[in-house]
């Protein structure tokens, strides 16, 4: 017998889930999610989500790429194997700039993609919400809100009452 994961409720259209999300947000829950077949503009705000932290990882990636480029050109041309090419100095930020710029972009892209996967905890091959009997319809025509048992405000009876009040249907408790 495993622990309860949370409570899941179904909704029939975008308007219903939009308003339900605002109610769950205003009730002060933090550990919950909305599951929809397609992106709904403005749902992030209705859920009270903050902006993604991915851009910070992108910035770190970019700075790392720039420094790698500069260090690479300096190390190969001015430290490890000093060689005069085209009458230019051993090292100059001028000719190190193109490679630094390219590596900034490359490392930013890596940090963005990998950071997105890391923060999303993807790939994830199993998730407790899959136990909801109708969950396949979340990829087609139904909308779900799941509130996790780990949420500090979670209380099986009161959370269920909130979802009922918000218009949720087919409310079930699911195990982890």
């Amino acid at each position, binding site marked *: 017998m495993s622990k309860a994961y949370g409570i899941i409720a179904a909704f029939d259209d975008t308007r219903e889930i939009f308003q339900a999300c605002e109610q769950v947000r205003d009730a002060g829950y933090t550990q919950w999610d909305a599951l929809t077949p397609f992106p709904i503009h403005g749902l992030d705000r209705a859920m009270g989500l903050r902006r993604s932290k991915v*851009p910070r990882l992108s*910035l770190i990636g970019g700075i790392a790429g720039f420094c790698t480029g500069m260090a690479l050109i300096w190390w190969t041309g001015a430290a490890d194997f000093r060689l005069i090419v085209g009458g230019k100095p051993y090292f100059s930020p*001028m*000719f190190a*700039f193109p490679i630094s710029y390219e590596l900034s972009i490359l490392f930013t892209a890596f940090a963005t993609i990998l950071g997105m996967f890391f923060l999303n905890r993807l790939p994830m091959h199993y998730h407790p919400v899959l136990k909801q009997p109708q969950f396949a319809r979340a990829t087609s025509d139904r909308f779900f809100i799941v509130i996790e048992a780990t949420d500090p405000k979670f209380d099986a009876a009161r959370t269920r009452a909130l979802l009922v009040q918000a218009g949720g249907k087919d409310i079930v408790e699911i195990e982890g």
Partner: protein
Amino acid sequence: MSAPVPPPPAPRSDQALYVGLAGIATTGFGLMFSPLKMVAFAWLVGVMFWTAITIGMLLLVLIHHIFDASWSTIIRRQYEHWLSAFKWLALLFLPLLVLSWMPRHSGLVWSWMDPATPLPGGHGTVGTDVLYVKKSAFLNLNLFTIATIAFFAVWVFLSCKLRKHSFAQDADGDAVWTLKNRWWAAAGIPLAALSLTFASILWVKSLEYHWFSTMYGVWFFSNCVRGALSMGVLMMLWLYHRGDYAGLLNRNHLHSIGQLVFAFTVFWGYVSFSQYFLIWNANIPEETFWYNLREQGDWYWVGMLILFGHFFVPFLYLLSYKHKVVHAWIRPIVIWVLALIFVDICYNILPAIKDARGDPLPFLSLTLLWSLTAVIGVGGICVWAYLRSFPTTKLIPIRDPRIAECLVYHESSHE
């Protein structure tokens, strides 16, 4: 539902006209303190600054139509109003053209116009300069005059078409006006690209006709678009705080235009660095002299100001989402960018004024003062043209096929 708030009264345009005329008069007053040559160069700075911004707006309207864009519908009408300034810019360019045809003053601004202009260091005259002779099929007064008239004709013509079709749609709501503008965008983008490239080569780059740079038109283009986007942000904020854009402008519109301000900052950096880097790497005297001149005296610090102020500062600043959408954050940076476009244009024009030894005259000088008054003068006339056109139509193209989509761009915001 609250009762609809009546729109604020149309802004007055006459004050802008007075500011413009005062700026022009002050620049003319400069002739009492500085030689005609300095004032003429300053006037070129003023005209180039606003012509660049107005070309940028023309390009943004053309690009809007070719992509069938939706979010930019909200700002397009303001650009269309500003495009009415092209005919006045043509008029304000006229003194420079007239000066070029006056036998006593020909060669004053563009030294190659007068074959008798001596080269610095006693190396003969322009007429005996092989680099001029080889380029004279392009750099001659007849072609310069015809091309200048043709450039303004193209810009005025495209602006008239885009404005007429857009304004006509307000009356009948016919989608055919959108299709007509899309057709003119397809035809107009190559025309605008070629005209702005050759205009920058003839009017600015040829001030030092020895020089070679294949990046020059692209450099000018990047400043045109940066200026137009910055003015676009200022117009958006102005109309929002006046109350016109209340309920229309949302956070996502500002985010989108802010992203473009950021993107063109990177583009400007890319182009300017490419021009410098290729010349630095090839190290050929016919090319390097242009930058060597700009390391003399205080021009070195102007170059550093442009490098850090026109690229690094806006680049780092605009990385943040907040700095693109919060009015108090986005406003100072676009004003800063406009100021740096002015410095960049000075950097490209003013060092062509040289002393007897062939060194450029300093940046901090009376010429800079007259350049500023010229910018105020020409700018006042442009703002006047914009404000004069403003009350003649609806605030936004209310019957544009994309306007509904534009107004709910992503989500409506209450901020």
